[in-house]
């Protein structure tokens, strides 16, 4: 049984995994790029080793080097976190071949779920419903896709076969615009994944994105930890998640849970994984994909179920049975996660890089912040723009919303622009409060301006603040000039200075 774990990741998730290891008394090995020498995960780990230059292709994606460091440092297992190497079956295989434990599913399960076409074929056989599309038909040419598109019907989505996180994804409303969109989807996919294969999928309108967390051990025990509501997205990037979903009733929860367990069993899944579903307004649901890794939004499930998912992953990798049975899993209260990104919501969510000169974290009852960013750290263009995850728990969904409002107001990040004002507006939005939204809500319905329109404005206060800032600056500038004017003649100054230096 391993007693030292290498964490092949950076940022908040590396810190999250380190914390679980520390609590379990497991030693940790961090790896880092030149840009991350001062990062929290490097400082919190028992050991730390340099991987290479800042770009991830020269550091966090260097699987061979990471395995070499694991062997050299005597780590018995590797936790990949999310992103980077987490869903690369060749890496998981190489870890296994090196005689190390991969804290995650078997390479075969990653491969089966990683190729979206194979994934859809596998789960369909297990009786899991999927969204209509060019499933399991291999890599089709543009001509073939253009022929098949009208059969699936518009609107539809072009998705990257090797994809995830919305990269290489395009929405098509008619056949005429499709060739150009295919070209750009392939280009983006090629640059992001080194693979330009794409497939088509029918776009379900009014759909919600709801996922089920599963846990499976090496003895064939599979349980689910209920759902997470992830419909609030922008450019297919999740911005805010909650558990449980206001839309899911007990009957739907049970049906989705059963199907999720079936899907996991179909690939002999081990460790923590997530089955993503699209749920339409009639509560029919379709399998989207399985994420064969720890999810960014796992903490909300932890808060409402009381299960520490990362510790459970480690336990499973150590060859132990799950600590819970399905009957032990209950939902207690409600949890919301806001992803705090270095993006300016007042300027089309433009990424913002820079030096974090100051951070004030919200604290107090019911609040959890998972972050790798601290005062004096840098937000670089090399990695994604997430600064932290702000997670709150409340007795009810309404309580959780009120608590999130309070937490967002306390949270201060100085040095880069953040999307905190976006989340504040979301907490004030009536459709959000009423649980009335779908995956299009953020991009097509929600408007920060509209939310703030009806609200009390503080133009007068803003005017006083702006004027005082400007005034202080003018005064300071005048002061600097005055200080340079000496009160005695320059000759006297010179003689004094000469006497001093004798």
């Amino acid at each position, binding site marked *: 049984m391993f007693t030292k774990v290498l964490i092949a990741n950076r940022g908040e998730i590396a810190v999250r995994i380190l914390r679980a290891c520390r609590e379990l008394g497991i030693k940790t090995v961090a790896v880092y790029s030149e840009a991350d020498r001062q990062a929290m995960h490097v400082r919190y780990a028992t050991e730390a080793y340099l991987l290479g230059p800042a770009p991830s292709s020269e550091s966090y994606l260097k699987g061979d080097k990471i395995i070499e460091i694991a062997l050299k440092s005597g780590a018995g297992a590797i936790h990949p976190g999310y992103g980077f190497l987490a869903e690369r079956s060749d890496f998981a295989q190489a870890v296994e071949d090196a005689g190390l434990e991969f804290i995650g599913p078997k390479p075969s399960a990653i491969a089966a779920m990683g190729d979206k076409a194979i994934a859809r074929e596998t789960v369909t056989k297990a009786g899991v419903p999927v969204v209509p599309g060019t499933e399991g038909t291999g890599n089709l040419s543009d001509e073939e896709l253009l022929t098949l598109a009208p059969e699936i019907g518009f609107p539809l989505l072009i998705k990257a076969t090797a994809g995830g*996180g919305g*990269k290489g994804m395009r929405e098509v409303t008619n056949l005429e615009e499709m060739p150009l969109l295919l070209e750009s989807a392939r280009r*983006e996919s090629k*640059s*992001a994944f080194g693979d330009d294969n794409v497939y088509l999928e029918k776009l379900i309108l009014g759909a919600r994105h709801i996922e089920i967390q599963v846990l499976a051990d090496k003895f064939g025990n599979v349980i689910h930890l209920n759902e997470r509501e992830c419909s609030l997205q922008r*450019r297919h990037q999740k911005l805010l998640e909650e558990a449980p979903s206001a839309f899911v009733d007990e009957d739907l929860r049970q049906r989705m849970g059963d199907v999720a367990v079936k899907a996991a069993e179909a690939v002999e899944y081990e460790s923590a994984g997530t089955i993503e579903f699209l749920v339409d307004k009639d509560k029919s649901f379709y399998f989207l994909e399985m994420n064969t890794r720890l999810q960014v939004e796992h903490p909300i499930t932890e808060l409402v179920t009381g299960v520490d998912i990362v510790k459970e992953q480690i336990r499973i990798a150590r060859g132990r049975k799950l600590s819970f049975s399905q009957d032990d899993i209950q939902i207690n209260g409600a949890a919301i996660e806001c992803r705090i990104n*270095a993006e300016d919501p*007042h*300027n089309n969510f*433009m*990424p*913002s*890089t820079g030096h974090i*000169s*100051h951070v*004030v974290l919200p604290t107090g009852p019911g609040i959890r912040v998972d972050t790798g960013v601290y005062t004096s750290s840098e937000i*670089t*263009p090399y*990695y*994604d*723009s997430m600064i932290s995850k702000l997670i709150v728990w409340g007795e009810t969904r309404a309580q959780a919303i009120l608590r999130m409002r309070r937490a*967002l*107001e306390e949270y*201060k990040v*100085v040095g880069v622009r953040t999307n*905190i*004002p976006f989340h*504040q*507006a979301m907490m004030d939005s009536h459709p959000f409060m009423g649980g009335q939204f779908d995956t299009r809500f953020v991009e097509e319905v929600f408007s920060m301006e509209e939310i*703030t329109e009806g*609200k009390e*404005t*503080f*133009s*007068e*206060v*803003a*005017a*006083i*603040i*702006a*004027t*005082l*800032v*400007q*005034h202080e600056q*003018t005064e300071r500038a005048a002061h600097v000039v005055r200080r340079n004017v000496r009160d005695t003649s320059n000759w006297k100054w010179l003689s004094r200075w000469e006497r001093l230096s004798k």
Partner: protein
Amino acid sequence: MMIYITTIDGKEFLVEIIDDRHVSIDGKIVEVDFESVESQPIFSLIVDGKSYEAYVYEGEEDIEVLLKGQLYHSRVEDERERRLRAASGGGVVESGPYHLKAPMPGLVVTVSVEEGQEIKKGGVLLILESMKMQNELKSPRDGVIGRILVGAGDSVEQRQKLLSVE
């Protein structure tokens, strides 16, 4: 005593700084206690007993105040500046070349235009990848593409000039 004309999102306020503790806004005198807290640019203002906290971002032209989750664009001028601007006709001049600068460091994925090409307002000029996201940089107005200073595959620094629209 200093008198400023402060514009917040198009609305004008006459603000007089009376002394360290007193300000008059549109003729109404209020007691203020204004301090920089934590670290710039967070400020705390207590005005007539009410406590506010705000971020203040100073741009080239204006000052942005982020207060209670809302962003206020403001311009602060003293009387002299005001007269000067009035004399020069005021308003934003739409002539002269527009220089597109990188809003953040990143990698140029594609330059979507060619030198001498006509461009409409909102037309895509260039795609810049940063933080794993591709960002379309658009033209703020109609014009003709002037010099292009970068090519696909170039890494650029923040505020580096990329191209101009004339």
